[in-house]
């Protein structure tokens, strides 16, 4: 059983990371699209009112400073506050926010547990009474993240399900998969909470489990903890089949679509990339399009392709 648990855990982590990476690479390798800016663009000087370099004479060609960090901070802030939901739909936010806090903290909980195990292997005991500050810090951080994650996730999972069921505009667009996901999440958070409360109140067993994973000497854990670990591993495997990548792709969408205001300057790398894309063949079937010709051929057609 301990071997099975270890393999499943390794597989779960490798699978989710691989699938997310594949999806991210596929997303990013799509061709450079036509500009589709939407203002305000946070890296622009005039982001406060949504102004762009087009407000300046010769602005598109001039050198300009992009405040990338401001854009990143804006995106990170939204992770922490989910401010658009708070501003526009507070009752939904009340459910969504704890749900997402549950997700974020359960990931942080596992990352910190991993490092706590590494610290333990380095000879630093992790406990409330550890002689090392690192040991005490890891103890409390892991404890805090685990408990808050489970509690918040339980509230959130129930909350989003109830909200989806009771608000007609959400219910009408919900799929059975939505409800399956909520139930699955609830099972993960609930099993974690149960294991913590009744079996492993300081997560010491769970840290030992991670030590066993790292050293490849898997250990048995209590049935309640085993159930939680299995559910969480399965959840990791399930995640790539949901829309959960939006945690990452929203950053792509803002940076590479909404805020993509890079001008195409003569002789630039962007220009050569665009020229290569204009050389691709088009197979659209309408009468005004010369199917089989390249994009450049289409554009050269006089009279809009009319016979």
């Amino acid at each position: 059983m301990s071997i099975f648990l270890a393999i499943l855990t390794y597989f779960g982590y490798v699978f989710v990371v691989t699938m997310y990476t594949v999806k991210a690479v596929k997303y990013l390798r799509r061709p450079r699209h036509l500009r589709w800016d939407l203002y305000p663009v946070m890296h622009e000087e005039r982001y406060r009112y949504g102004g762009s370099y087009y407000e300046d004479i010769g602005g598109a060609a001039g050198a300009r400073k992009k405040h990338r960090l401001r854009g990143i901070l804006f995106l990170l802030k939204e992770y922490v506050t989910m401010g658009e939901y708070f501003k526009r739909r507070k009752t939904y936010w009340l459910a969504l926010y704890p749900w997402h806090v549950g997700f974020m903290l359960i990931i942080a909980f596992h990352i910190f547990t991993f490092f706590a195990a590494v610290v333990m292997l380095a000879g630093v005991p992790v406990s409330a009474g550890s002689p090392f500050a690192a040991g005490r810090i890891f103890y409390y951080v892991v404890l805090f993240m685990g408990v808050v994650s489970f509690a918040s996730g339980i509230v959130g999972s129930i909350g989003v399900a109830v909200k989806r069921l009771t608000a007609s505009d959400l219910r009408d667009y919900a799929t059975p998969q939505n409800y399956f996901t909520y139930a699955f999440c609830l099972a993960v958070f609930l099993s974690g909470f149960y294991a913590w409360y009744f079996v492993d109140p300081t997560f010491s067993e769970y840290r030992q489990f991670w030590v066993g994973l790292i050293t490849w000497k898997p250990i048995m854990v209590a049935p309640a903890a085993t159930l939680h670990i299995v559910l969480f591993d399965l959840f990791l495997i399930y995640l790539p089949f949901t829309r959960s990548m939006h945690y990452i792709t929203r950053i792509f969408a803002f940076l590479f679509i909404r805020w993509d205001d890079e001008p195409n300057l003569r002789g630039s790398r962007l220009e050569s990339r665009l020229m290569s894309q204009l050389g691709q063949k088009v197979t659209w079937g309408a009468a005004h399009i010369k199917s089989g010709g390249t994009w450049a051929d289409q554009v050269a057609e006089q009279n809009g392709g009319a016979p």
Partner: protein
Amino acid sequence: MKTRISVKNMAKPDRQLATLEPSELMPLPPPYDEPRPIGELSDEQKARYETSLDGVVAVGVRKPQSPAEEEAFCRSFLSGLKKLLTKENNWTFLQPLMHSLDYCVKCQLCSDSCPAYLASGKKEIYRPTFRPEVLRRIINKYLKKEGGLLRKLTGSDIELNFTLLARLEELAHRCTLCRRCAQVCPLGVDNALISREIRKLFSQEMGIAARELHELGTMQQLKVGSSTGITPKALANIIAFMEDDIEEKTGRRIKIPVDKEGADALLVHNAGEFLAWPENPEAFAILFDAMGIDWTLSSDLVGYDAVNYGIWYDDVQAARVAVRHAEAARRLKVKKIYVGECGHAHKALLVIADRILTGDLNIPRESFLPMMEQFVTSGKAKLDPSRNNFPVTLHDPCNMVRLMGVVEPQRKILRAVCPDFREMTPHGVENYCCGGGSGFAIMQSMNFPDWRNAVSGRMKMKQIIEAFADTPDPGVKKYVCAPCSNCKGLLRDLIVYHRAWEKSGIYYGGLVELVVNAMADMKKPYIDWEWH
């Protein structure tokens, strides 16, 4: 009790999906609160076209005459849908499209940002997430070929038939592409883009598009030179008329340069201005003369009409028009192109075409606004703002403001020349569309103008009424400034439809007219407050 409409209903031809009862529309304040019904279609129109979405026809998709024709229609749609999702055929928008298809969580945060949805009294079919969900389900079922259980799990059960597709094409023309919905999405999803891509699929694969955008729009523009039908010869006559008109108004003869090789700048106007509002290009000529700019117009095919309707429905047509604009500038050997008062032409030529024009076609292109702002605020212009001593509000064209970030220059100009300038609420990048965006302003199909005036333009009308709420007296003339031809066209229709001139003295016009009206050396007022 009314039955709720769901995405599945789109494929069921049993009844019309939405009925636009005047009493259910978003209320307007008195005296604009009288209900006005949307015109009924004739029996012949109903027999010929698919009208069962909302009883309104924008595109007019003809009903098939046989099951074989319906099958071919559906096959053609699926063929186009496949192409829409490939990088060769859709490198232009594949990444933003796939993002919006894949990552919408249907939280409906965007719904209340859509003026058409709100103005309609929240009709479900106009919800920004409704039409993308239809497309998503078709993709899941017919392209990804999800099996029975998976299809049930992902809720992708939808029947593909003519009714569904024809309604979908019509529905793609109930969105003005203003992108307010995208602006509020924390996940970066853009449901307006999906409307545009649906239109594109129908146009580029099936040859179905709104007549005013395609046949009378881009096709006519590429063939005769302008979507208005103005030929180069007619342009010469119009320019002669404009020179006479300027002389009559100002007492000065100003030569409007045409095809001046080597000029510093080529100015391109929406050719609709020449026909409907010649005072606007005339005001440009007066101001450019006062500024001492070395400029020219072009009489080349397409070179004298800045419009590019392709950006609303067809990438190939958009690229063709943009290239013709750049070729006209290249032939004249100008250093730059200025775009006049046309919002979508700004976005088409400055933003969208930026990744189409390469090499020597990539000629610098600018809005006229920064240069005009510099002229007005530098003190070089002799201005007397008291000549504009009437209430003025500003409409922000979506294409120019939210979609390309030109927000302040027009405001600085108005603050300098209009002592009673007041903002609408909201404004700037959060503005509401005039209701004529994405081609609606020029689309005159059947009863579509009724829908446009009653629904898509309703929020703008409400904003205008509220902006002038402190002076309801029709004896006090008020000016809605819209630095965009298409927006002006829609404002004209809205003001007539709601009788706002008679009820409140509300008039509309461009920006440069206000600047010329404030010029101290003008012998008589430039703005004539006459309807045309």
